[in-house]
């Protein structure tokens, strides 16, 4: 390899590819040729450190070349060209909406929106994925995923205080009968490891983990998806940051070792049989807690001008990012190490965890050092930001990197990726009559892994720490009902016990729909996230959303086609709901190849994370029935289409049509329902999503400890809808509301003209009975329904 490196500028394409494979860079032939061309121009050979830096800086993980690159999308006979898919869809919607309450979008480690009544605070929100590391080592991968997204919040502006963690996972079915290739972990083991990793890191950091979800599909057997999110509070005057020439580069937190070398480039490649263990990081939550405590104290004393986290790519990425305008002069011999045999270039790209980089004025170093010592937090002064626009990294007398920043950050070549619409056969015919009774179907559906209780996972997380989790992940009379959204009162950050402002966080996720129609999947996901916020009484006109795309290899035009359609869906939904995207991330190459060379791609997967303010957390509502005698209303129109439903996963009914979402009607409906919630008419609301209306009613009933008598004769519905579609169809924009007996008249005034209809009453008897125009569809004992639902996932 040394020979190849020392003759880099004269290597053939084949030799370049060989070198790339040996070093694990994941650069394309085009990119390697461009690097070669640049160094020929400089008249010298690159060092290993320089090539590692380029590979990391140009990686998919850091540069998002696919989403930010040009795409030619072919659908039928037409071709639509994008110069930058991300900017022309996601960013475009945010720019057009131009919400004044968006304080920082797409420019920092997380998006920031206004929070509270005082105008003093911003709410930072970010979600990340850590898929590839979790496929190789689930526990360590999940831990460091959580640690990484927390550092994003610590590194936004001059640092926000984390107040909420979120987690959403996709696994293969734990009881999958598919034969797994030799290099994979069984899904049950992956799930256990991931849950334990999220638990151990979040709990030790003292941050509540209170929102998220778990989704099962055999498409994730070899490539689990691990979405981790974090929200934090930041004073508005601490949002701006700027590195000043002459500032010192100070690394605080963990020491540098060999762990995690090539994490950034690893994320840009398919997982192969012999994927290396060195791409796995191991987290150390206590070190990160020390770092958090130092940062919050130093921020408030104004001891640094800028901060960012050491994520993928390590010092190379973090210092390169902070010094992109000023340049950076780095002396690696000053780094605090945990491995004495580490090579200089390895120090530069190591992804050892829990490290933050600060830009510190020389005059304030002593003040910072005092806090670091008081908190027993490791640190080192690595160098300076000189202001000459050049990156110079040395180790003693040896030069490791000497490159202009402009080449590193602007030199990456990009090329147009072909995309085409996937051909999927859609059938909208009437669904076949079920062989089982509706009651038996309901019980089977409640036990389905995508519907059943998540208590065995949620109970492992501390969702109460900081004392601000107002609406918890499990709700109801017995504290085990499935909540729609979490509501957080961040008094631990604001220290203001007289201000009851809070915020809600929810998610929308529907890859089953994405397999059939990625555009509708995006609409449904945004709708579900907004509807979940509505169900706790959040101010949905102030919804801000995050997009996290995960897909298989973008070299497949159909994968790119899915991405284009989903991105267009995101744009249209954001515009319709008035909900700007404030941050996001994409993860590609979620595709595994086994020893036999068979590819295992994931389905297109889009997690929408949403947040909205809750004006008064004391008025937030939960999903369980509260009182016998209350009326039960269905808001929204039930429509045909069993595509992507849990029912179809259990027993294909011959109909795989995805019910299209009428977004304008949904927004009108939600606005009216929110008025009713705010007026105190609605003590419980729950969305109709996975499993359909029957599951929603069952969950509201057994979580509240009340039965219900339901007759769907007045439920708004499309003509000719079958009982199966009505009970188990998953058409969007619907929710079930409980209305207080004495306030029904006021409620009806507030929702006048909207598709809201009374469907029954809450009863003391512990039975759920559902009829349609008098004909009984099922009558089931609540204890039996709950027994089916309350499975132990782990």
């Amino acid at each position, binding site marked *: 390899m040394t020979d190849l490196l020392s003759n880099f500028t004269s290597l053939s394409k084949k030799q370049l590819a060989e070198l790339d494979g040996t070093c694990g860079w994941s650069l394309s032939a085009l990119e390697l040729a461009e690097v070669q061309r640049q160094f020929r121009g400089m008249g010298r050979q690159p060092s290993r450190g320089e090539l590692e830096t380029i590979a990391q800086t140009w990686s998919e993980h850091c540069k998002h070349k696919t989403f930010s690159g040009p795409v030619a999308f072919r659908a039928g006979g037409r071709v639509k060209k994008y110069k930058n898919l991300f900017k022309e869809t996601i960013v475009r919607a945010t720019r057009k909406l131009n919400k004044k309450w968006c304080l920082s979008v797409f420019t920092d480690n997380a998006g920031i929106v206004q929070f509270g009544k005082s105008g003093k605070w911003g709410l930072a929100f970010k979600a990340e994925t850590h898929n590839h590391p979790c496929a190789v080592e689930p526990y360590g991968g999940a831990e460091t995923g959580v640690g990484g997204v927390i550092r994003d919040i610590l590194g936004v502006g001059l640092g926000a205080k984390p107040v909420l963690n979120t987690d959403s996972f996709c696994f293969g079915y734990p009881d999958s009968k598919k034969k797994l290739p030799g290099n994979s972990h069984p899904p049950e083991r992956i799930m256990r490891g991931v849950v334990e990793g999220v638990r151990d890191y979040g709990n030790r950091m003292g941050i509540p983990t209170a929102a998220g979800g778990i989704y099962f599909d055999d498409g994730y057997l070899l490539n689990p998806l691990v979405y981790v999110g974090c929200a934090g509070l930041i004073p508005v005057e601490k949002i701006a940051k700027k590195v000043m020439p002459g500032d010192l580069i100070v690394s605080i937190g963990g020491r540098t070792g*060999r762990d995690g070398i090539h994490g950034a480039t690893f994320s840009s490649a398919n997982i192969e049989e012999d994927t290396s263990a060195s791409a796995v990081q191991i987290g150390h939550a206590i070190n990160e807690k020390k770092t958090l405590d130092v940062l919050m104290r130093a921020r408030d004393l104004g001891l640094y001008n800028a901060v960012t986290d050491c994520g993928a790519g390590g010092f190379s990425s973090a210092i390169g990012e902070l010094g992109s305008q000023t340049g950076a002069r780095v002396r690696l011999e000053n780094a605090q190490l945990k491995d004495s045999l580490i090579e200089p270039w390895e120090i530069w790209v190591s992804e050892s965890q829990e490290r933050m980089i600060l830009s510190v004025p020389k005059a304030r170093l002593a003040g910072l050092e005092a806090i670091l010592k008081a908190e027993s937090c490791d640190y080192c002064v690595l160098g300076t930001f000189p202001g000459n626009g050049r990156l110079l990294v040395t180790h003693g007398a040896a030069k490791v990197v000497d490159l202009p920043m402009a080449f590193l950050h602007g030199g990456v070549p990009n090329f147009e990726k072909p995309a085409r619409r996937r051909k999927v056969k859609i059938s909208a015919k009437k669904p076949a009559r079920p062989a089982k009774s509706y009651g038996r179907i309901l019980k089977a559906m409640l036990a389905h892994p995508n519907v059943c209780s998540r208590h065995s996972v949620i109970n492992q997380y501390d969702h109460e720490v900081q004392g601000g989790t107002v609406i918890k992940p499990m709700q109801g009379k017995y504290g085990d009902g499935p909540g729609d959204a979490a509501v957080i009162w961040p008094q631990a950050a604001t220290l203001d016990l007289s201000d009851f402002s809070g915020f809600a966080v929810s998610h929308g996720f529907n890859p089953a729909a994405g397999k059939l129609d990625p555009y509708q999947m995006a609409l449904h996901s945004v709708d579900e996230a907004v509807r979940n916020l509505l169900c706790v009484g959040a101010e949905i006109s102030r919804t801000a959303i995050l997009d996290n795309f995960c897909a298989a290899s973008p070299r497949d035009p159909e994968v790119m086609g899915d991405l284009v359609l989903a991105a267009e869906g995101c744009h249209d939904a954001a515009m319709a709901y008035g909900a700007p995207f404030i941050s996001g991330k994409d993860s590609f190459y979620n595709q595994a190849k086994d020893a036999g060379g068979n590819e295992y791609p994931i389905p297109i997967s889009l997690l929408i994370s949403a947040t909205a303010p809750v004006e008064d957390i004391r008025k937030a509502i939960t999903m369980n029935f509260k009182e016998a005698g209350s009326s039960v209303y269905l808001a929204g129109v039930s429509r045909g289409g069993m595509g992507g439903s849990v029912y179809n996963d259990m027993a294909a009914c011959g109909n795989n049509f995805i019910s299209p979402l009428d977004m304008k009607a949904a927004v009108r409906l939600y606005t009216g329902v929110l008025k009713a919630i705010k007026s105190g008419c609605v003590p419980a609301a729950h969305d109709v999503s996975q499993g359909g209306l029957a599951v929603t009613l069952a969950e509201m009933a057994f979580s509240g400890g009340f039965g219900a008598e339901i007759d769907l004769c007045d439920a708004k519905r499309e003509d000719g809808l079958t009982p199966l579609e009505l009970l188990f169809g998953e058409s969007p924009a619907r929710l079930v509301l409980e209305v207080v007996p004495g306030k029904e008249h006021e409620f009806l005034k507030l929702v006048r003209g909207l598709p809201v209809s009374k469907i029954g009453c809450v009863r003391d008897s512990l039975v759920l009975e559902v009829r349609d125009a008098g004909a009984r569809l099922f009558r089931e004992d609540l204890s039996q329904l709950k027994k089916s639902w309350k499975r132990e996932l782990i």
Partner: protein
Amino acid sequence: MIIEIWTKERYAKNEEAAFLARLARAGLKADAARLSRLYRVEADFSEAEYSRIKSGLLTDKITELSSLAPRKTALKKAYRVEVWLKDSVTDVVGESVKEAVAHVVGRLPEAVRFGRAYYVSCASGLKLKEAVSKTLVNEVVNKFKIGKTKTGR
């Protein structure tokens, strides 16, 4: 020196049942199991100092028992499975204990590594190895060994 800590039998039923269920899901029907935590302390401490670390730092005397030698169990036809992180993998628990040991003994040990021991009563060592590979270790980061146990209490 390896210090072994385990939960007293009357408090260990839940963790043992959960462990047996994990093995069953991995295809091994085991009759009984016992679980221990292991701390490998690399230092030139005296026997008395190791005993202080064992009893004063690592053992909750109300719910746990401990030993400086491998534990003896009353299980019949039992195997002992020892699982550690590979030496190249950062051991967060071991690092924390290393600092705590220094507070107890007054000197920093060279290293502390954390591991687990599982005592499993089952018919086939081969099947046990398969189940261990499926559910207890990730060979990317873990190393393990399986041996026959000594019987006793």
